[in-house]
């Protein structure tokens, strides 16, 4: 059982929905993003998604694109992101960490080296946007073997015929992307998302978490009430872009977490 599996088991036992927060590693600098990361569990975050910056984030909207650019301009590297996780783990041994990004920086480091280093740093799972099931041999299978969860995105274009293939090598949880679009786009309506989540849940025992476009406590609550939890990314990253102090960002995160947890 990974920390992710444990977290969802205990949430289930409490009858609580999950709140997942995304931040970009190194945005706007390493120290600030580490301080933010360290504050997330106390703000009510159940799972941390830590973005790995990439020059060409083809599934991201402007907010996360710019966050990645700020991080890279600040000198963020994959090594520094792994170091950040290791530093976080010194004070927190239970909150699950999922690294999220694109394949090339991982491929460039070497898949085996990366997996060994990620595991050692205390990473629990990976979301790699540009690795569909058709490319499972690249990273998904080796990651599972290395004891990391490989969390896959399911989308509105994933029809019933394709769903089993998407779920097959997924572990930890399923991330349902509620819209066809990029991060930071308009939110889906809970009324539309509910049946989709039910469709996925009928095909898997894994928790189904919904993200893309959620930016308020109310939406977090509405979406979490029809799923196993909600993810917020761009709305948090936007506050970093606006240079809000860390406590202010964390207060915003707490509002979102409370929203999701009240579902």
């Amino acid at each position, binding site marked *: 059982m990974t920390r992710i599996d444990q977290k969802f088991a205990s949430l289930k036992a409490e009858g609580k929905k999950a709140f997942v927060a995304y931040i970009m590693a190194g945005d706007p600098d390493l120290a600030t993003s580490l301080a933010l990361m360290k504050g997330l569990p106390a703000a009510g975050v159940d799972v941390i998604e830590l973005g790995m910056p990439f020059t060409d984030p083809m599934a991201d909207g402007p907010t996360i694109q710019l966050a990645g650019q700020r991080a890279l301009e600040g000198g963020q590297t994959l090594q520094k992101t792994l170091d950040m996780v290791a530093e976080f783990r010194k004070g927190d041994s239970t909150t699950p960490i999922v690294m999220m990004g694109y394949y090339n920086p991982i491929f460039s480091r070497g898949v085996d080296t990366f997996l060994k280093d990620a595991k050692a740093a205390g990473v629990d799972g990976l979301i790699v946007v*540009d690795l569909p099931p058709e490319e499972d041999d690249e990273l998904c299978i080796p990651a599972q073997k290395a004891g990391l969860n490989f969390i896959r995105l399911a*989308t509105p274009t994933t029809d019933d015929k394709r769903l089993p293939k998407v779920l097959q090598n997924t572990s930890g949880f399923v991330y349902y992307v509620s819209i066809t679009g990029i991060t930071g786009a308009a939110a889906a309506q809970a009324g539309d998302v509910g049946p989709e989540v039910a469709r996925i849940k009928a095909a898997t025992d894994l928790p189904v978490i919904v993200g893309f476009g959620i930016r308020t406590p109310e939406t977090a609550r509405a979406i979490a009430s029809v799923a196993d939890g909600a993810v917020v990314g761009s709305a948090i990253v936007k506050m970093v872009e606006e240079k809000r102090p860390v406590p202010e960002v964390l207060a915003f995160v707490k509002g979102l977490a409370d929203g999701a947890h009240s579902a």
Partner: protein
Amino acid sequence: MAEDLINSFMTGPDEAGRFGQFGGRFVSETLMPLILDLEERYEYAKTDPTFWAEMDDLWKHYVGRPSPLYHAARLTAHLGGAKIYMKRDELNHTGAHKINNVLGQIILARRMGKTRIIAETGAGQHGVATATVCAKFGLKCVVYMGAHDVERQAPNVFRMRLLGAEVIPVTSGRGTLKDAMNDALRDWVTNVRDTFYCIGTVAGPHPYPAMVRDFQSIIGKEVRWQLAEQEGEGRLPDTVIAAIGGGSNAMGLFYPFLDDPTVRIIGVEAGGKGVDERMEHCASLTGGRPGVLHGNRTYLLQDDDGQILEGFSISAGLDYPGIGPEHAWLHDSGRAEYVSITDKEALEAFQLSCKLEGIIPALEPSHALAHVMKIAPTLPRDHIIVMNMCGRGDKDIFTVAKHLGFDMKI
């Protein structure tokens, strides 16, 4: 052609879209079903005679194919060696080879019931070709173009707008061709139901590299029979040379000759200011290493951390940090050679073509021509070189004037 498929270079890609380790389908889940659908529809169209009949008709009456295979006699005499032929794809409607591929993709899009076409463009040639064919068929057309390229290729921007396309200047990233491709992919992910992404080169996720190559292969197929007509039955070129941005005009010329071992194949990358550690070039094969970008694994310009670098070239059409995966494979397997030509060398070739042959070439094929200038004098007179004159230079005269210190203000 080779009977022995095991030793053939023409069987790729495999069903996973791979040419050896290169290619593949590195896209987000949202796009995956679309790409599988496209592959299925293309596989069907490929064997459908009515599809090719429609292509042939438009190639002939709309594009002006076959394009001439022209013996450049004065250039040959000037260089004093190999006999030089130019494949005149710059005479196509819209002024480059790009329309060969666009026609194929748009006919396919129409058969798939898509009503909105998106494209990325660098030099603007692919954008103009796409806008043109969309106008002809009454389809909505949106072209993503890096803000930097919008500036340096202004005449093509106006052409696209005249043709009814919406040109969206891309400011994300550094505002170049690769960023335009990112934004086109973001558009596609958002508008999955009605939109067809018309990619302009042999890159992107499978099936694009194979599909674009197949449409561009008309170039090499014509060269085969045209050369036989002019030089005698069975005469093949000794060397074929083409410039490479993503690599579509080059694949189009090379592909029909891959299994003819006597034909030497040379791809010419943009060397910019020189292929060295400054990385001010676009030579992915000679100055990059394998990585994953825009849906496929190929050679990329990247830093030690796997972040993609911006290329640099005088030619907007070659300014791309990657290269089609089939070229990466031909490079590693040794079937084709890849060299680079600097901006300065390309500018010299540009001027020589104007003066000796009365042909104003685009800056892209000027790179290919510059390599011809290097090797032709070292080769015997009975050695036949075919270079791909894949675009005309109208779009580039402002850039060239600037470099030659000529004031174009009127």
